[in-house]
């Protein structure tokens, strides 16, 4: 009898212990990885420990999970295959062959064995489902494999802002480098304010802090200590290490951009900041455990955006493209601009291409220039960069070829491309054929 009781107690202990272990794993963000069914894509691996970002409590996919982070981007780049195109009843036949009204039809997570570039889990020739008759409309496409539709420089499923036919046609014949290559200019501020006294600060503050601040744009804009350390209110307690709350008081757009990209997406999901050790790209071991924040690139008090534009990136990034930067033609132009021997806007830093300045409208419909702090906004696919950056200085024909040349990208564009994209040739052939059709037939 006694033995039976002990066995019962042991059994109950095992059950409760097991339940407790499962609950701990399930509810602890740092341990949820135990439930991950397969490795997560490069786009989502940083937040894989917080299942609830994308999943319902019973591990279904939340209806609006994808839109929460990606809807803005799709709108911005005028998505060429919006959901509304497929929910129209006249297109119901298309949904039979591919459910294009759901993101997860093409982007299934945790399926590394079938995941291609851009997190696509459909076979490469998915365009065939709806465009199998394309050769009838575009004879130039006869015989082209459907697996090549999404090759660099041809088509994208979502963002075709730089790849539609008339746009490419408009840029045929452009030289490799334009006569006056310049990126979007830094906005001209109003007359700088006289640096003011920084206000109250702790007595043990290092003198270099005051010195750095006095030389900064913050001082020139009249932004004193209390704006960041006391959130603009002298009666509030002193914050020794200001966070995003302080920065976003003035730089909301930049902070939102940062949190929408790989550098800040963990913070947006309520997780600890990213460290280079967590990254999938090669990073320098010396920086492995630095936590990313605004101050990672913009040194506290010495807010030098020129330093943030290249030096800061190379503190951590250690892939082939980054390692080749310093010896590249782009870097030489950047060094000349920094040295004052080349005009403003002629240098090309890391940020020039990956965190570009862009001119757009604010909520009051005023045209403003801001720096895109989401490093991924114009990167995946590479074609996104064509309009936002490349065409400022280069002609489209060369740009299409260069972005299709992986080896050249790895060497950080150290010479002309050795790959040729046929898009422009196809357009020229089609135009010639159309012209011929219009000409009157002669005997």
């Amino acid at each position, binding site marked *: 009898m006694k033995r039976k009781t002990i066995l019962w107690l042991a059994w109950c202990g095992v059950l409760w212990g097991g339940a407790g272990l499962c609950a701990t794993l399930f509810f602890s963000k740092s341990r949820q990885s135990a439930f991950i069914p397969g490795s997560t894509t490069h786009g989502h691996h940083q937040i894989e420990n917080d299942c609830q970002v994308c999943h319902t409590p019973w591990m279904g996919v939340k209806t609006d999970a994808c839109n929460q982070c990606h809807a803005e981007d799709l709108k911005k780049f005028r998505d060429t295959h919006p959901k509304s*195109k497929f929910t*129209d009843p*006249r297109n119901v036949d298309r949904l039979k062959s591919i459910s294009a009204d759901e993101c997860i039809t093409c982007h299934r997570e945790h399926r590394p064995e079938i995941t291609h570039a851009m997190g696509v889990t459909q076979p490469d020739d998915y365009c065939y489902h709806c465009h199998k008759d394309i050769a009838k409309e575009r004879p130039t496409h006869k015989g082209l494999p459907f697996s090549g539709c999404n090759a660099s420089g041809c088509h994208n499923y979502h963002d075709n802002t730089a790849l539609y036919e008339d746009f490419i046609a408009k840029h045929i014949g452009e030289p490799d480098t334009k006569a006056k290559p310049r990126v979007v200019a830094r906005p001209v501020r109003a007359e700088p304010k006289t640096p003011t006294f920084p206000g109250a600060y702790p007595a043990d503050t290092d003198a270099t802090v005051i010195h750095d601040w006095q030389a900064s744009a913050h001082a020139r804009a009249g932004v004193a200590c209390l704006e960041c350390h006391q959130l603009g209110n002298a009666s509030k307690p002193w914050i020794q290490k200001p966070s995003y709350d302080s920065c976003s008081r003035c730089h909301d757009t930049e902070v939102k951009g940062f949190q929408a990209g790989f550098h800040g997406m963990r913070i947006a999901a309520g997780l600890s900041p990213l460290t280079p050790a967590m990254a999938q790209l090669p990073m320098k071991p010396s920086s492995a455990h630095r936590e990313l924040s605004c101050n990672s690139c913009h040194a506290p008090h010495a807010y030098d955006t020129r330093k943030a534009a290249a030096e800061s990136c190379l503190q951590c990034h250690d892939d082939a493209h980054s390692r080749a930067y310093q010896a590249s033609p782009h870097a030489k132009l950047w060094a000349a601009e920094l040295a004052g021997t080349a005009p403003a806007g002629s240098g090309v830093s890391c940020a020039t291409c990956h965190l570009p300045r862009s001119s757009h409208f604010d909520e009051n419909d005023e045209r403003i220039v801001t720096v895109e702090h989401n490093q991924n906004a114009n990167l995946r696919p590479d074609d996104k960069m064509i309009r936002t950056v490349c065409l400022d200085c280069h002609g489209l024909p060369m740009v299409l070829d260069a972005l299709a040349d992986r080896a050249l990208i790895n060497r950080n564009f150290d010479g002309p491309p050795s790959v040729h994209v046929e898009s422009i040739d196809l357009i020229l052939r089609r135009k010639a054929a159309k012209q011929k059709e219009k000409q009157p037939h002669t005997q």
Partner: protein
Amino acid sequence: MKTVKTILASALLTAAVVALLATRSFAADAKDTPSITPKTMADALHAVMDSDRTVYTKNVVNRLANQEKVITASEHFVDDKALPLPAQMFRMGSEMVTSKNVGFTYSLLSKWPINKQNAPKTDAEIAGLDAVAANGGKEAYYTTEELGGKKYFTAVYADVGGVAACIKCHNNHEDSPRSDFKLGDVMGGVVIRIPAQ
């Protein structure tokens, strides 16, 4: 005992009166609730769409782009900093309505489309566009169809080339399959679909 019977009788009587009033009230509600047929709804929707598009075509695009020439209208209106073409304005509205899931959808189709995705493809679309082209747009075409297991009331209205710019562009566009449109020709049709229970 008598008191209990009285209470029960009163309760039953009250319940009966309440039930009767409720029934009458619901019946009155059903009778007083306005209802319209799918055809009336489709006609009304089309009247709004057609009027708005005509206003945009004549008072915005044709006046400013073709007559006063102070701005251009372009297929690539964002890149060209131009006005959207009237057909694009109509189509953008249609996509917005579809994404709102309000229970009906509409599209602008043609037997001679510049963009081949806008050619008729269901039996109702093919028959409807043929019918309105044949009658010169005098009468709309109404039918029912089943798509993806759901039934729809489908109406097709003629889309008539109303200003010279429509004709000129469709006749000269390199992707247009027809180049002999004249002012007043039926160039396509508006298809409105309303789910039929």
